[in-house]
């Protein structure tokens, strides 16, 4: 084989694995803390979709129809990239869009933290399991010749992380710069069936209702000395807990539906939003799309594949 190979003694591998385990442990702690926050935090731990409409910024003023189309198309262009430098450029743009919309950093960071467990698996596993192709730079550790550390695999995992982060950063500009109703109305104008938007609104509303219900039931269980565990009788408690949640929500489902019918629901909700597009909307859309297409062209012209 013609692969450039770097030989390293095995203690280096121990050191590297130690580093990786430390990183993973940190990610796990973060994920656990977030899970704990979602489970037992004060009210409002589930994020509400849709932003404060009164704010003004280039993103808030962007017509939702154009904003949705541009950001969705840009997301697909970004995930098509293969070259690490271009992924980095896309990530830089996504990072610049957030201050442009005067958005706080907390929620984009939370989105990124939510994915990191899955992405960490790629970072650990890909370098060791990627198929060795001619030309790949390898690091071989003494005594472990059958598990070469493939730098191409590491690079591939890093581009995946970059692309996933980039799309995650675009979500807040997409969702938090208009009320959820306006965003869904924009989707409807783009050809998504109106029913889909209505169902999403209903589901979003009742997720928060049922989450509160679940919190109440959970405090009841904790007050009665329930301790999370994975023994068999705990599984029964979990089963009863989820079963009760489902029974209550089924009963609520019928009440909600009757209330909707009593208010004259006949399969459609009234719309409130009017959109008018101006030159600035077109300009922002064209800028973002041109940048995305430019990245993709550069990606494919500069060597084809990673």
């Amino acid at each position, binding site marked *: 084989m013609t692969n450039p190979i770097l030989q390293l003694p095995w203690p280096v591998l121990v050191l590297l694995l130690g580093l990786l385990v430390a990183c993973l442990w940190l990610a796990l702690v973060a*994920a*656990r803390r977030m*899970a704990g926050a*979602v*489970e037992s935090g004060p009210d409002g731990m589930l*994020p509400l*979709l849709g932003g404060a409409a009164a704010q003004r910024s280039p993103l808030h003023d962007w017509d939702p129809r154009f904003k949705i189309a541009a950001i*969705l198309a840009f997301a*697909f262009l970004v*995930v*098509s990239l293969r070259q690490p430098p271009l992924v980095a450029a896309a990530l830089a743009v996504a990072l610049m869009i957030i201050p442009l919309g005067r958005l706080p950093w907390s929620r984009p960071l*939370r*989105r*990124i933290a*939510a994915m990191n467990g*899955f992405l960490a698996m790629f970072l650990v*596993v*890909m370098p060791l*399991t990627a*198929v060795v192709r001619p030309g790949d730079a390898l690091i071989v550790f003494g005594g472990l010749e059958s598990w070469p550390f493939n730098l191409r*695999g590491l690079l591939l995992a890093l581009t*995946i992380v*970059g692309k*996933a982060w*980039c*799309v*995650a950063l675009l*979500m807040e500009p997409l969702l938090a710069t208009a009320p959820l109703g306006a965003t869904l109305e924009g989707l409807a104008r783009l050809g998504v069936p109106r*029913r889909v938007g*209505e*169902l*999403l609104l*209903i*589901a*979003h509303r*009742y*997720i928060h209702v*049922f*989450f509160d*219900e*679940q919190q109440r039931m959970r405090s009841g269980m904790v007050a009665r000395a329930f301790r*999370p565990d994975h023994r*068999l009788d705990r*599984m029964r408690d*979990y*089963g*009863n807990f*989820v*079963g*009760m*949640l*489902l*029974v209550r*929500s*089924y009963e609520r*489902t019928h009440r909600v*539906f009757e209330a*909707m019918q009593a208010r004259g*629901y006949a*399969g459609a909700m009234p719309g409130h939003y009017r959109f008018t597009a101006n030159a600035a909307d077109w300009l922002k859309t064209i800028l973002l799309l041109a940048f995305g297409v430019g990245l993709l062209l550069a990606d494919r012209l500069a060597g084809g594949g990673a």
Partner: protein
Amino acid sequence: MHISDGVMPTSLALGSGAVSLAVAAWSSRATRAEDLPKVAVVAAAFFVAATVHVPLGPTSVHLLLPGLVGALLGPSAFLAIALGLVLQSLMFQFGGLTALGGNALLMGLPALACGLLFQLFRGGGAKRQMLVGGLCGGLGIVGSAIILALLLAFSGEDFLGVARLALAAHLPVVVIETLIAAFIVRFLHKVKPEMLEAPFTLKRDRP
């Protein structure tokens, strides 16, 4: 486990998106139009059930319950799961934006299959319903792990190692979900057995 953005090549992301759109359209047509809001509310209930974490060794896993969604909702299960996934992606970023189609397939297809299995074999007794419900709960996770591994494998030969690891990581989840699904079905059988009978969303003549 959900696939994040950037893993699947764009052709696979768009292809799985198109397939899941088609299945979701079929699923919503199999539901009576006036029952659609109910599907949305039940989807919200399952969304919240999936925020319940069960401790497992040094970490914790959250419930997925695809088999149970299928058992309770029948053909509407795919629509409910697609709604839940869209909201999960919009709220937490689990499942990504461009990978939504693939994630809907990996949760939704096992749900449809398990729903059919449950309605075929559930029988009448409490023991039997518990057994079949538990099996559906476990098979739902097995099915989604297999589809996840297939999607990863189709993403390129470099992903085979990750696909194998993902399959192995689902094994303890299968055990937990089997047990909890069995206990949920037993609870529902005692408290509200009509929820386990034919799904309310199946097309039928109105009384």
